[in-house]
């Protein structure tokens, strides 16, 4: 965001070594591309990756502490900080401007709270008021700063595509200009993580507990705000306002995939790096904005995560729901057959049912087809030509189902104020969730467990019979 005019970029500084120069040259030769192009691409991706790592690390805490919008607000107000310093000093020096930007970030965080508490403005409105005002101020100042190059475009769109072009000598190596701010930023972030790991983890997941244990949540909040401000300032040089995407989206994806803080941090970094890398390559392909496409890639990755994430993914949830429905239908068949056998004249003879009767017991439709296949594949049912009959294991399974059903009816009868004709439906719903442990618990609590409220015997199940 801050460039000095005339631009002091040293593109071909003879004699100063460039890291990985040999490798990139070799790669360029094998791809048949000009060496400088490959080198630029390499450094741009490196800058993007570094930027993504810094943002993701800080972003995880924003997401966990539910203050993601602070990242958004900070990215807007940073411009006001640089502009303010420019107004005061009339010059464009990187260091004072960096300080001004960080100060603006902290001021945003403090001011948001102040407007909320002192002016009785709802919190979301107070965020909106503070960051739009500061951004407007920044834009007005920047638009007047014609004789120096305070680049508004860079703030709005990001400059990732050129990040690898401007190589500067730093500590004897020729590396991208952005490294000079990004590497210290990364070190500061890692330092914060290392020193306050325990506190950060505690205050992020459970602020109240943290306070009772003696950690100052407020202190951590402002410490974190400072680090986010630093990250935002250095990353904005590269990706502009879209720093918000890198802060929040990879962290949010990682949050969907894991519940562990350390895993979340690593995952979000990997995701962030993939976003900037793919975004940059797509931008080359389509002649478009690398920062913008990084954000789009991040959004696409989020969609993928939402659909296929193993634990909470939509696909997984749908599958589990279907499987549960199949099991419930299948168990209904078993219980139905068992009851029929109970009622028959010869209770010891295994009852038979036609396939269509079994479908009726399962409730019909495609689910009942799946349920019958479920039963046959588990050998709970046996098919003999046109009829089905319970196998030995099926009979035990069925007995356990009916036992659950009747125990639940008896339990409702004793503890609920329900008319006896209202007992069947709840038990029909709950029988599928009653495991052997709960059967045991209910038996112990009931005053008698021989008969259900309708006077039918509750079938006994030996321990080894239980599924």
């Amino acid at each position, binding site marked *: 965001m801050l460039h000095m005019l005339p631009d002091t970029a040293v593109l071909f500084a003879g004699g100063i070594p460039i890291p990985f120069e040999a490798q990139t040259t070799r790669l360029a030769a094998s791809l048949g591309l000009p060496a400088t192009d490959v080198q630029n691409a390499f450094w741009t991706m490196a800058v993007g990756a570094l930027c993504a790592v810094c943002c993701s690390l800080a972003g995880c805490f924003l*997401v966990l502490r*539910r*203050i*993601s*919008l602070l*990242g*958004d607000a900070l990215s*807007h107000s940073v411009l006001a900080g640089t502009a303010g310093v420019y107004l005061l000093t009339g010059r464009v020096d990187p260091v004072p401007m960096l300080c001004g930007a960080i100060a603006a970030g902290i001021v945003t965080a403090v001011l948001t709270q102040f407007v909320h508490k*002192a*002016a*009785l*403005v*709802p919190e*979301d*409105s*107070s*965020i*909106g*008021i503070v960051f*739009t*005002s500061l*951004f*407007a*101020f920044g*834009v*007005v100042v920047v*638009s*007047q700063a014609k004789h120096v190059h305070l680049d*508004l*475009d860079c703030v*709005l*769109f*990001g400059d990732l595509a050129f990040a690898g072009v401007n190589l500067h000598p730093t500590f004897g190596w020729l590396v991208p200009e952005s490294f000079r701010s990004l590497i210290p930023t990364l070190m500061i972030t890692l330092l914060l993580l290392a020193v306050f790991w325990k506190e950060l983890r505690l205050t992020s997941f459970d602020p109240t507990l943290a306070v009772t244990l003696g950690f100052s949540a407020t202190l951590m909040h402002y410490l974190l705000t400072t680090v986010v401000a630093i990250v935002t300032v250095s990353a904005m040089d590269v990706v502009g*306002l*879209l720093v*918000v*995407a890198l802060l*929040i*989206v990879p*962290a*949010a994806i990682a*949050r*969907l995939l894991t519940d562990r803080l350390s895993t979340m941090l690593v995952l979000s970094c990997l995701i962030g790096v993939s976003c900037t890398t793919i975004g940059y390559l797509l*931008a080359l392909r*389509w*002649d*478009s*904005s690398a*920062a*913008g*496409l*990084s*954000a*789009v890639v*991040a*959004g696409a990755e*989020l969609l993928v995560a*939402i659909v296929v994430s193993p634990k*909470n993914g*939509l696909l997984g949830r749908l599958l589990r729901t279907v499987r549960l429905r199949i099991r419930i239908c299948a168990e209904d068949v078993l219980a139905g057959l068992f009851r029929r056998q109970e009622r028959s004249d010869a209770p010891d003879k295994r009852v038979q049912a036609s396939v269509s009767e079994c479908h009726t017991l399962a409730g019909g439709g495609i689910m009942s087809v799946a349920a019958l296949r479920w039963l046959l594949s588990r050998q709970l049912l046996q098919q003999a030509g046109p009829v089905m009959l319970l196998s030995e294991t099926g009979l035990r399974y069925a007995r356990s189902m009916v036992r659950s059903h009747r125990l639940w009816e008896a339990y409702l009868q004793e503890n609920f104020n329900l008319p006896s004709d209202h007992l069947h439906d709840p038990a029909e719903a709950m029988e599928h969730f009653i495991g052997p442990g709960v059967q045991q618990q209910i038996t112990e609590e009931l005053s008698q467990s021989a008969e259900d409220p309708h006077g039918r015997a509750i079938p006994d199940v030996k321990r080894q019979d239980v599924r």
Partner: protein
Amino acid sequence: MFFTQTQIVLTGTLLLGIAAGMVGTFAVLRRRALAGDVVAHSALPGLCLAFLTFQSRSMLVLLSGALLSGLLGAVTVSLLKRFTRLRDDAVQGIVLSVFYGGGIALTRSIQNTHRNDPGADLESFIIGQAATMLKGDVQQIAVVVAVTAGIVLLLFKELKLLSFDEQFCQVQGWSAMGLDILLMLLTAITVVAGLPAVGVVLTAALLIIPPAAARFWSDRLSRMMMIACAIGGTSGVTGTLLSARYDGLPTGPLIVLTSTVIFALSWVFAPHRGVLWKSRDMTDLQSFLPWVESDDTVPRAPTTLDPHVSAQEAS
């Protein structure tokens, strides 16, 4: 009739300020202030796609595209909230930044492919460019304001009920969800109408700051809304005039800064809620704040007036 360019722009920003004040009042009270921000950012890709599809820079075409993708953004927010365990703030940040990223990528590639076409400069929508508003644009904004005002007045009762007590609204048989969607729609339309003048990044401020400032001056919704419209209109006009007076200062940010100044002044000087009122004695105040009434029409501590109610239970 012939209008100068400044008059056209003035009319446009005045109307815009009024509409935003109206809709924004409900947005702020319903804690939906940042929804406008999400819609504004999400509008950018739709605007670009409309340009690419129809190869036209007609404001109506561009803004229709913007409205569609803005609404898509709003819908995405509610879907993400419904189907993931992500929190409100993260969801808003995600939708806002991803859509904005898409918009930036599209504006960039449009700019790169239409290098010789000055009409393809969609980047002006990001910060806004009120100065180039045409008479047709203002007419369209006028229609938007009229429609918005009409709906708000017609449904003032229902929207007030929804904003104050959503559950009571539902229990009385109103469709809270329908009203909510309507309010979202009005917000989106207003935001999109503001894009050409104030831009993607700052339009949300028009919705938030004037109502927040108006709240200092009144304890009645209807009056607060009127004051918000007045503040919005004033900011629009003042910002435009300042921008015309000092060549080169962008209009959108000036409008926002004007309303911020009004917010700050309200915070300091407003009766009852203002800083001065709270910090000083009444009699002291009256000497330099002539509008402060001497009779105690709105006493702050009513508990002692009611024989049935003790002071402690106010907690």
